[in-house]
């Protein structure tokens, strides 16, 4: 894991990625009890290409050049299945900008804040998000004022009310 994070940091240092942060299940596990997951979801802000397109291709090309290979929808980076996800809406962009700096065995990295993870679960609203939501809200240290502000700004208060008893 540490070595995979060092590779991500190198991609950011080299400008292949403008900024990255861990999201998804692994970010949730940072705040709650661990559970099984296959992928390390990494949200990325990409530098715009010369043609103004945002594409993950430069990340895949850079990793292939380092000898890493694709594994279905992921890249196998130092034994970890990493799925790169571009910041696809304003909520994810904000979550990436405000991600918490974390040290993983000497490797610096970033993890989405707990309040943003709740907002993303509400926004994505897949069955597994709903399943994870209750346990996450029970176990994760949430700043309620910050959470309510995020939910209000991103139009998620109504769903929050529906999902919380």
């Amino acid at each position: 894991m540490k070595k995979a994070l060092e590779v991500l940091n190198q991609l950011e240092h080299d400008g292949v990625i403008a900024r990255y942060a861990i999201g998804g299940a692994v970010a949730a596990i940072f705040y709650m009890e661990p559970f099984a997951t296959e992928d390390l979801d990494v949200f990325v802000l990409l530098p715009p290409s010369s043609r103004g397109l945002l594409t993950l291709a430069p990340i895949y090309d850079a990793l292939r050049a380092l000898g890493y290979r694709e594994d279905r929808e992921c890249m196998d980076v130092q034994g970890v299945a990493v799925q790169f996800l571009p910041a696809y809406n304003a909520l994810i962009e904000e979550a990436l900008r405000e991600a918490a700096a974390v040290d993983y065995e000497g490797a610096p990295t970033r993890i989405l804040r707990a309040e943003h993870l709740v907002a993303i679960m509400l926004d994505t609203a897949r069955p597994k998000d709903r399943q994870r939501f209750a346990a996450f809200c029970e176990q994760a240290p949430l700043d309620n004022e910050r959470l309510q502000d995020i939910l209000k700004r991103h139009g998620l208060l109504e769903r929050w009310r529906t999902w919380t008893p």
Partner: protein
Amino acid sequence: MDAINAANGPTELQRALERKQARRRLMAAAPFPEKIAVVVQLQARFAPILRARGEEYRVWRLESPGGPKREG
């Protein structure tokens, strides 16, 4: 029944639930690398079951020195 339970204190079920809750809190507070190690243990446990059903399932191979990992 409630009266009996109240008289005898917490039931065995209540105690089991409390132990489970305490374990969850303990795991939630564990250092992140320890939690990642648990994730990999869970992957290794689930993989043979899911593969037997014909599903693909990844198990992370963590921390070997040197360059990229390859299937050996």
